[in-house]
């Protein structure tokens, strides 16, 4: 249960990060708060849009899916089942691969780093680690009683 709670918190934070970048991509809110980073360079590069949709919205959809599955997995009927953890691990695997591709583009193609994108990549990686651990750990059963 603790793992799923941790995933829910991480997915919620990631959802807000992706939403902030998505709203900026729609021209809402003006300048990105980025410190000395290269957020605007990344966000205005041609890789910031995929199939006509700002990349950040793929993140919004991904985090929404992870959060929804995790919240279902926290319901008493699903707590002992492995299915939600496996599904979140599968979703997070896609998220990590997508984040890795975006980070590669930032480092080696665009030559600028967007701190918000890195934050999202770190969150997705933490979700993947937690979900994978939760999905494949051995269930802990109570020790068998040895009556004299």
């Amino acid at each position: 249960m603790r793992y799923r709670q941790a995933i829910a918190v991480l997915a919620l934070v990631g959802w807000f990060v992706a939403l902030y970048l998505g709203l900026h991509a729609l021209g809402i809110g003006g300048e990105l708060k980025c410190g000395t980073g290269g957020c605007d360079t990344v966000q205005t590069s041609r890789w910031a849009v995929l199939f006509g949709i700002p990349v950040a919205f793929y993140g919004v959809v991904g985090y929404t899916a992870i959060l929804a599955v995790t919240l279902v997995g926290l319901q008493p009927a699903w707590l002992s089942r492995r299915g939600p953890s496996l599904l979140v691990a599968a979703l997070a695997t896609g998220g990590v691969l997508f984040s890795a591709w975006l980070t590669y583009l930032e480092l080696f193609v665009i030559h600028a780093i967007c701190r918000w994108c890195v934050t999202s990549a770190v969150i997705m990686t933490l979700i993947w680690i937690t979900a994978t651990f939760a999905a494949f750990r051995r269930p802990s059963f109570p020790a068998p009683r040895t009556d004299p």
Partner: protein
Amino acid sequence: MNRFYVMLGVLTLALGAMLVYLLQNNPSAPRAATEAPATVIDDGFRGDTLGSDKAPVEVVEYVDFECPVCASFAVVQLPTIKAQLIATGKVRWRYRDFPLSIHKYSFFAAHAAQCAGEQGKFAEMHDQLFGNHRWAQTGQNPTGLFRELAKAAGVDVARYNACMTSGRYAARIEFSRQEGLQRNVNGTPTFFVNGTELHSSRLPTSDDFKRLADSLATRRK
């Protein structure tokens, strides 16, 4: 379990409040650098140049940084012109600002280029603004992006920020625009070769400029 959902609710509210703060507490482009001032004074500046002062041919380009055709010219034709004509001392290239009113951030971009020019980096900023031209299609406030482009152009960002906030070159840009209007410039890019407007049914290429420069040089001999 209930405590967890309360905590999740509190976190949602906190993150929501932070998002609203990030979206609202956001400075727009410095106003002084985005529009023409009420009074325009000639400060004697006649545009940044590329190439030798002794070059026999001078090309004046009236340019709008948000104009896609100017961007195309800068990215596709200008590198060849620089290599074949400017670097060889045949042509001197002079930039004059002509920000079109239909473009939301072209005056602001011209000001960013002037602030870079103040530090001797006009050409580098010109290349950054045109080489990363997607900003002109997004409609997003480019304040942060221009700062990043200035940094990439080798500009001291603190001095650049001060320059942009002051809007100290707004009058200069407007003077250049009015000069263009007096010379019947009505679009960008418009070129003048040794003072004569270059009329062409299409965007001139590097080959066109080479032919012109060669023909003017031959006529001089």
